[in-house]
């Protein structure tokens, strides 16, 4: 509630209020027929109905877990390989062409093959997501490592530091602003790919909820799912990503516009 007293935050709500008002007007007045576009009251009812049966919560948890899983895998791979490539010319000469090639392929292009390999479900969805998130984290890590000023490396070397200290005390924190922006972008890419993947390659999750609703021509449930997806993203961004940035790169004064 406190945030409502903050005029700047209130300003961010305004566009959504206007959009909601327009939505309500065009549906309530019959300009657009209910069967084409459900109105706010119907969508609200569909949302509370799904929630009261626990279905919405289940799908949210399923989708978020998949996103977190894919992010964890992408972070380990992306930061690990990114560090190697950023610090080692031969490794980057070898990896970069491969990574560029696969990066050009949209993550969701792997859905058909992934279904053949892993069937429907979390493994396929995660595979597709990692294909969407990894590259961003990888490229950002490489860039971040290469942007670390040489004097910081030299400082640690002359303090007696070796490889381990260089990685932990210089390269990783130095690359963090870039990695953070990779994580942020990766969550965005991943979230979109997640819904797309769940539309076809899963039997649970928010994407599946929408897919399933369309089988029963439940436009109200489809819209409920879409709104939840958008709202969840804003929550992830505001409640998770922004605080991490505030606590690290902004406090260090190393944040840059990338």
């Amino acid at each position: 509630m406190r945030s409502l007293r903050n005029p700047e935050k209130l300003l961010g709500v305004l566009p959504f209020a206007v959009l909601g008002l327009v939505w309500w007007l065009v549906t309530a007045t019959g300009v657009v027929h209910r069967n084409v576009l459900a109105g706010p009251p119907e969508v609200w009812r569909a949302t509370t109905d799904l929630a009261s049966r626990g279905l919405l919560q289940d799908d949210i948890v399923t989708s978020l877990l998949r996103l977190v899983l894919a992010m964890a895998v992408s972070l380990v791979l992306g930061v690990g390989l990114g560090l190697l490539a950023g610090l080692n010319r031969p490794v980057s000469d070898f990896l970069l062409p491969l990574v560029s090639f696969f990066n050009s392929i949209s993550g969701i292009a792997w859905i058909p093959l992934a279904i053949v390999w892993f069937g429907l479900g979390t493994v396929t969805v995660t595979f597709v997501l990692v294909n969407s998130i990894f590259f961003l984290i990888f490229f950002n890590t490489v860039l971040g490592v290469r942007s670390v000023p040489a004097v910081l490396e030299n400082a640690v070397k002359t303090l007696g530091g070796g490889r381990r200290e260089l990685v932990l005390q210089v390269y990783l924190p130095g690359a963090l602003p870039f990695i953070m922006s990779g994580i942020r972008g990766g969550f965005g890419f991943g979230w979109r790919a997640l819904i797309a993947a769940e539309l076809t390659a899963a039997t649970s999750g928010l994407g599946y909820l929408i897919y399933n609703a369309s089988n029963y021509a439940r436009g109200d449930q489809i819209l409920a799912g879409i709104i939840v997806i958008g709202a969840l993203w804003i929550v992830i961004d505001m409640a998770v990503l922004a605080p991490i940035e505030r606590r690290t790169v902004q406090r260090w004064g190393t944040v840059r516009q990338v």
Partner: protein
Amino acid sequence: MRGAVSTADTKIVADGLHFAYRSQEREPVVALTDVSFEVRAGELLCVVGPSGCGKSSLISLIAGLARPQQGRVLVNGRTVRGPGADRGVVFQELGLMPWRTVNGNIGQGLEIARVPRARRDEVVARFVAMIGLGGFEERYPHELSGGMKQRVALARTLAADPTVMLMDEPFAAVDAQTRVTLQKDLLRISMQTGKTIVLVTHSVEEAAFLGDRVMVMTRRPGRVKEIIDVPIPREERDYDALAHDEPFNALRVEITNSVRAELW
């Protein structure tokens, strides 16, 4: 001086150093050639010379951050083959970790040396007090003034307790007032710790004021032009007193003329 033999009193020997920056695209840039000199244990040697004459390169060679193509550097009688905690560097660009607080930066060398937490905190607190940064322990470098950052960089190097301190234009980026304070701090610390110090500066004033000896370098490729003694005990170094000291002023003029002759 080539083939100089180090005695027990000799801390650093530069023996016939030749160093060039090589790159694929351009002609090699010879930064230093035929550079030989010695630094005695506990001595404060100042190095002056025109910009681009290889002063920073010389620091890198002693620190072991770069390797000479010819010649060698000996510290404590052993050939330098890489960087090590026995030779601390205060870099021209400072190189403080932006992600570490004042305490974190000062304690970094101790952390690397695996000094236990309690002992580390003790040493860090002592250095924070010494550089007068009490109350700023948890601040990050970007929240500090230039002079404060400079002090933190100095304290970080001192806290790691090297036997040799290499300082590259350490006071160039601070205002005149702060510079005088820092110079006095350095004189005091050097007397208290007995460290061997090589200090690079572009200021003849600073070199004459701080150095037991002043080494003048030629323009690039840098060579040792001459080494001038400044026979004034460190405890007597005081700008006001020295301003009217005839022998000191004569030395200052001598060094100035020597450097000036190297400018294009």
